[in-house]
């Protein structure tokens, strides 16, 4: 039991450390409306390796995604993803999850 707990703790610490050094992307999109759309985008983003937390703000047309260190989301990739989900990609900003701005 202790071993299981230790492994879980180490796993959580590793996970937290990985994402703390990762990147937060904030993307503006047009067309976000009902939860079906929001879930559709979440589903597509979830399929990308290294993607962690995803927040979709229906009213603001804002999608915030945290990715692990070493993972990068590109504009062409996001344009295609949002188009497939039925929306129009507008812009993206990114900042380091350890606090530093990368591209505001």
């Amino acid at each position, binding site marked *: 039991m202790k071993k299981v707990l230790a492994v879980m703790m180490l796993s959580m610490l590793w996970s937290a450390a990985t994402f703390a050094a990762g990147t937060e992307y904030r993307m503006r999109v047009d067309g976000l409306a009902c*939860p079906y759309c929001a879930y559709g985008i979440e589903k597509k983003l*979830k399929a990308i390796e290294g993607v962690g937390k995803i927040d979709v703000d229906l009213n603001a047309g804002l999608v915030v995604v945290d990715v692990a260190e070493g993972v990068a989301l590109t504009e062409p990739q996001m344009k295609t993803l949002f188009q497939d989900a039925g929306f129009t990609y507008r812009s993206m900003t990114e900042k380091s999850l350890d606090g530093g701005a990368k591209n505001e």
Partner: protein
Amino acid sequence: MGEIVLKALGWITAVLLGLVLIVWLVWIPSAREPGYAFVAAWGGPGNAPGQFHDPTGVAVTDSEVFVSDARNARIQVFDLDGHFKRWFGTKGDGPGQLGRPMNLSIAGDELYVADYWNDRIQVFGLDGTPHRNIGKTGKGPGEFNAPSGVAVAGNGDLYIADFYGQRIQQLHADGSFVRQWGHTGKVGILAGEFNYPIDVALTDDRTLYVADGYNDRVQVFSPDGKFLRKWGGPFAMNIFGPFNGWFATVTGITIDRSGNVFVADFYNNRVQKFSPDGTFLSTFGSKGTGPGQFEKAIAVAVARNGTVFVADFANNRIQKWKPKP
């Protein structure tokens, strides 16, 4: 000169008023029955028993109400007065696990769940025991790209709204493909085409009603698959609005014992009721957080006695309504 301008303005005003009158008379019907009265609401945001994090589907038996609790990845079950009874399902893609459960359907003693993220219809016993899965991810026959609603015929055939597939599929009970309506992956606004179809309902004779989500309309198909009619705003061609008989994103549809059609009118924060031929009968609900108000009415179910249950999405609750005498 001034007189001519005034006359012209007068004519333009008269023509515009005439057009408004025509639109009003032709496309904005009046209620034909007393409507519905609010009875009760239950729920609230959270993940405790009886609380919801995005209720997205509702179905009812003679004694229980089943609710898709989407972000909690579970189905919750209540008695008809809203007392919590049990829940089942966890996050995941294994048997009995759910990834965003959406519209629900009950046939016999089984619950059919549109398992949106897992691209399958998952079938449970009413006690929550997982029975089987139908479908998988894909664009081919019998495959799904985010299934959002399901109806079941008397012979066990399934009719499934395939949201990103832009089609309705009919499958046999074993998942084998029968036919489809709509062009796979292609949005359309003409009859028989779809713009993110979200839910389906069937009559006993297999007349198919489709909640054609972003076309803001209902489409109806005969038992042999032919297009019969559509309604929702002028020409039922993706023109949305707040008037009687118009919609602003159709997210749920169900049929009562008399064949009347109930539609969850998402952005209009209401439920509308129609006769089987699409004649507007009544509406209930308005925007808000108080009793009888909705923050996005997303799904609707009708009990055999006519009581209506509505999933009130952003208020994270279920509402119960009864017909006015």
